[in-house]
């Protein structure tokens, strides 16, 4: 242990320093910082929601408002077709929308990372095959694949997550592969190999920590896309009817004639919520990429 501890400590302190440097660079970008703060606030609100708000307001049989009433003192953003508060629905919608966004992004990033690292690390025909495989999926229109999947699988949040997650990974795989290649060309990897480090060691100790920052940045961007994809699938009628998401709130407003009635308060809040959250994710993701992606750095 004692012999291994010193280099590990060095590695950790280096890593800490690098994280601090990254953070400073990141915080230097105002847009990214603002995005991060607002995004953090949104996530915190979504998590704490059961403590500060009552879910029963989402039950149509418990709705107290008049249907499609414009914003009033009681209902700041008016009510929906069944007299429920649009504010309440938009706020609660964040939970499942973000859940879908994060889970789908996680799924896609895990797949992408595994394929990306495998393609870069092992070389030979494995790499060639995986690369072709990735390229194949990269050019396929992912939304169309997602629609096909959700049309074929039973309806539910799980299906939406799988449909988005299974179709959004190729760009991550490409990115991770490129980064892995860069890392593995560094001399210390060769040293590690020479010292008898196996594949697992090299990948676990050197490659993964090296690609992680980039993967993180990528995840942020994928979450935003997943939120939009979720709303789009709901609009196309292949979403999950059981859970309140922004897509569902929008779809039900459109299905129930909210636009004809001029009930803008039914259509704008969930739409704007999507735009804002996706924008936050994009800002943070861009900020992270600028700092972390060597190719985008000047």
């Amino acid at each position: 242990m004692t012999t291994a501890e010193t280099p590990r400590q060095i590695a950790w302190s280096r890593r800490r320093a690098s994280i601090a440097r990254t953070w400073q660079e990141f915080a230097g970008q105002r847009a990214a910082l603002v995005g991060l703060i607002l995004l953090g606030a949104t996530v915190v609100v979504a998590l704490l929601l059961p403590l500060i708000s009552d879910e029963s307001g989402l039950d149509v049989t418990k709705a107290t408002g008049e249907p499609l009433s414009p914003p009033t003192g009681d209902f700041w953003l008016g009510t929906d077709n069944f007299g429920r508060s649009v504010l309440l629905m938009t706020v609660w919608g964040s939970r499942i929308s973000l859940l879908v966004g994060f889970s789908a992004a996680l799924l896609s990033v895990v797949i992408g990372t595994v394929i990306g690292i495998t393609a870069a690390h092992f070389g030979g025909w494995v790499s060639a095959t995986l690369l072709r495989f990735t390229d194949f999926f990269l050019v396929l229109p992912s939304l169309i694949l997602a629609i096909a999947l959700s049309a074929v699988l039973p309806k539910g949040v799980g299906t939406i997550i799988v449909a988005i997650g299974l179709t959004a990974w190729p760009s991550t795989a490409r990115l991770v592969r490129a980064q892995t290649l860069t890392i593995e060309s560094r001399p210390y990897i060769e040293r590690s190999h020479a010292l008898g480090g196996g594949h697992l060691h090299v990948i676990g100790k050197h490659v993964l920590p090296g690609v992680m920052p980039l993967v993180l940045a990528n995840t942020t961007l994928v979450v935003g896309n997943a939120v939009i994809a979720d709303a789009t699938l709901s609009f196309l009628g292949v979403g999950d009817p059981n859970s309140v998401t922004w897509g569902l709130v929008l779809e039900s407003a459109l299905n129930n004639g909210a636009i004809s009635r001029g009930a803008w308060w039914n259509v704008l809040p969930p739409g704007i919520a999507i735009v804002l959250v996706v924008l936050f994710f994009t800002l943070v993701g861009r900020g992270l990429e600028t700092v972390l992606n060597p190719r985008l750095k000047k």
Partner: protein
Amino acid sequence: MTAPEQAAVLVDPDERRGGTGTARFVLKKILEAVISVVLVVVLFFFLFRMLPGDPVAAMTRDRVTSPQQIAELREKMGVDKPVFVQFGQYFWNLLHGDLGESRLLNNGRPVADMIGERLWPTILLVGSATILAVVIGLWLGIRAAWRRDSLFDRTQTGIALTLWSVPQFWLGLMLLVVTNGLFPSRGMHSPDAAPDVLSQTLDVLHHLVLPCVTLLAVFYAQYMLIMRSSLLGEMNADYLTTARAKGLREDLVRRRHAVPNALLPTTTLVFMQFGMVVSGAVTVEAVFSWPGLGQLTYDALHGPDLPVLQGVFTVLASAVVLMNLLAELLYRVLDPRVRTS
């Protein structure tokens, strides 16, 4: 589903600049594209076969059918045979332009016909939106890069990122409400337009405005941001310093050296991102009743009319693969660095 600028990383210049001869390169790329198209066919075939239930039972439901007819259908679709035999049959038919028959939307009509009549509206919409998005995106991207961190740069980047975050169908509906009857809300033709070519063309353009604007509003961001970042990358390159040292005026340095070099990867990306525009067309066509493949998808989803979905998706995905092939070849033709090597 890639973030705006990230796409730039997806092009690996080293791979596209192999030292092989042009003929071999072209052949290799074509072969790869063919394999991809076959994979597309396989993928969608098995995806839609995963759905439980007997396709023949589903086809004959609610209509008078004799046992003999059912037997014929079974024979034709080959449902009793092993799945790979069915696939062989499907693929063989496909090679002869037979994509099967619609069941719900247009009973018994060949899917290939339905796709054929919807193809041109989609090409018109996707094509015009792509061209406009590229022109606007590249122009704004160049401007923004030239005046990096200026008010123009920051506002334009902000607007682009915001539009990029908008769900397309929502934007379409908002435009429909906001323009309030200024543009037609449905379809591609007005039955009242005079029959002469000019009036017909103007009529189609009039109908094209809203769906086209909706599509391009979301996609131009990508082209703009890619152009901006690749131009920024080029502007620090050594050869520009050399060019400046030769006494070339700054704007000429940019225009003649930086822009074309940055233009190349961007142009290829236009083709690579074609799939996203096609995806976008699905929702936009549904909102504006545009009589294209997207609308067909939307209609078919409500059945669902699986043979139609399978056919449309196969065609769309293959089109994207082919566009990508075109991009690869174009890159080869356009990039002077490749040609001279």
